[in-house]
Every structure is written in C-alpha cells, then in structure tokens.
C-alpha cells in the first residue's frame, strides 16, 4: 500500500480545491510563516482519522472548516481525500481487491463527520484500522509535528518510555 496523492477543499486555509502529489523519494514543502504548510500535515492526519480537535490546534472539530477571510465567506463543509495505490493487494479486507483506494473524510458544520472508501460509507474505525495495518495513521510516530523534536528533548524519562511503549 502506498500513497499517491492528497486532495483538500474547505480545509483550514486550503479553501480552494488543492491537489498534493505524494511521490517517491524526498518531497520538500516550503513557504513563509503562516502560509499553510502545517495545515497540510493536519489535513493528512485528519483524513486518516484523527479524533482530537486539540491535536489539530482547534477547539472543536468544526474549526478545521475554512473560517472565512478577507473577501471570502466561511465554508460550511470541508473534505480531504487520500488516494492510495493498492496494486500490491496488501490493503486489508474488504478493500484488498481494489487497485486504488480513495479514502475520503468530510465534515459539515453542526452535523458531523462522514468517512468513505471508494464511495462507500465506512466507520471511523475502519479507516483508522486500514492505516494502522499499513504501519501509518494519524498517531503514527512517522508523522512528526512541528515542535515534536523539542518536546522529545525536554521530555521526562517516564514520558520517553511511554513514547517507546506506543511504538512497540
């Protein structure tokens, strides 16, 4: 299972439909302070089933919907999709027979989240399991948030052991 691309619309500062190709090797993401780079990371984690608004710098989950800015009115809906290449066939059942998986999460103000895989409604847990089985997911240690390195350095010995436990 590998990642091919991510699309976003209405997600935080990415109000317009955006497509981020996820290719092999090393992809750099650059830009000035506050332009939206970390928002892309949060979009990825959100699509993989992140459950905590706080872990995405929000107070409630609706905070991830574009809140309006300048001439643009706020949006009522946000959607992020992850397109996965499954030609190796190692996605878990019931998705293992698809060559491509489109995992989509959408949210509407005051009415909650919806998850879909290739157009079929699924539960949050199905999406979380899909990614966990592929050694990734919103809580994966390989998604290193801004400030995490500083936090690892200043962590107390007990907290560090917990970090190891979670990875084990």
């Amino acid at each position, binding site marked *: 299972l590998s990642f091919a691309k991510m699309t976003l619309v209405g997600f935080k500062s990415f109000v317009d439909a955006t497509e981020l190709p996820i290719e092999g090797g090393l992809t750099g993401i650059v830009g000035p302070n506050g332009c939206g780079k970390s928002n892309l990371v949060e979009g990825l984690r959100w699509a993989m089933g992140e459950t905590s608004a706080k872990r995405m710098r929000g107070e409630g989950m609706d905070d991830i919907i574009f809140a309006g*800015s300048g001439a643009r009115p706020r949006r009522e809906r946000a959607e992020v999709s992850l397109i996965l290449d499954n030609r190796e066939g190692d996605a878990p059942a019931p998705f293992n027979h698809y060559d491509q998986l489109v995992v989509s999460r959408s949210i509407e103000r005051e009415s909650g989240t919806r998850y879909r895989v290739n157009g079929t409604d699924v539960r949050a847990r199905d999406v979380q399991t899909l990614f966990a089985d592929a050694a990734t997911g919103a809580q994966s240690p390989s998604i290193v948030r801004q400030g995490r390195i500083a936090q690892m350095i200043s962590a107390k010995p007990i907290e560090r052991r917990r970090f190891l436990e979670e*990875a*084990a």
Partner: protein
Amino acid sequence: GRRRLLEAFGEVNENFSSLFGRLFGGGEAALEMVESDDPLEAGLEIMASPPGKRLRSLGLLSGGEQSLTALALLFAVFLTNPAPICVLDEVDAALDDINVHRFCDLLEELSGRARTRFMVITHHRHTMARMDRLFGVTMPERGVSRLVSVDLARAEALRETA
C-alpha cells in the same frame, strides 16, 4: 507485556546507536532504563557523546546536538516498523549546514531502503537543495493557501516573500 517492551527496547537501542554514529560521523549513544528495574515502571534516559566529546545525558548537549540525537531516536523507532509515508515538519530548525546534509543523507537512504515517501517541511536552504522536488505554499489572497510546484531557483524567491 514486559518481555515485548524489553525486546522493543533492545531493537530500538541498537538502531539508535547505529543511526547516531551515522548522523554524527562517529561517537556513541545509548538508551538507559532508569529509576526502576521494572521496564514497565522505568524511565528512559538518553546518553550520547558526539565524536571527541564525553558521554553525557541529552540535556547537557548543545541545541543542535540534541536535535540530531532526537532524530536518531525517532528514526530508530521508525526502523522497527517502517511506514509508507513519513512527514517531517521543520525538524531541521536547530541544525547547521553540515548536519542538515547528514540528515538528508539518512533520509535518502531510508527512502531507498524502506521505500518510504518523505514529505519534508523546511525553511532551510540546504534541505531544499537535497529534495527530489519542491512544492511551495503561498497566500496570494489573505488567509487563502495555494500550492504550487517550484524548481529550486524559484524556491529562493518564494521563501522570501510574504
């Protein structure tokens, strides 16, 4: 439970020592269980000595040395269960130019070996120079982000505009 944690500890410790040596071009490092003999109660101390320096706990190293050591630990854990995607948000903030190149050498090797796709968010000119491709994020309209593909020469201009 206890046995599984000890095995994980052993594997991560081995990876950590070897990755530290690679990132620092020498030196030694190891994880130590402290404050209890029971691994489920113990804490984890990080001991490290960059080349030519004495072994000391992580808190006593310089800022950049601490960052590089933390990265060695991060990837030590990564290697026990390599992910198809790895996203690094400004992890190179405290590194000087030489260490940035060592860090990027490691990323290249991991992406080759584990076939992991890396997304590296950075402000560091030297990190950008080591990427296979670059995407720039701008806000041509206030509060609205836009993603564009950039070549390295354009990246210089991109980083410097608000």
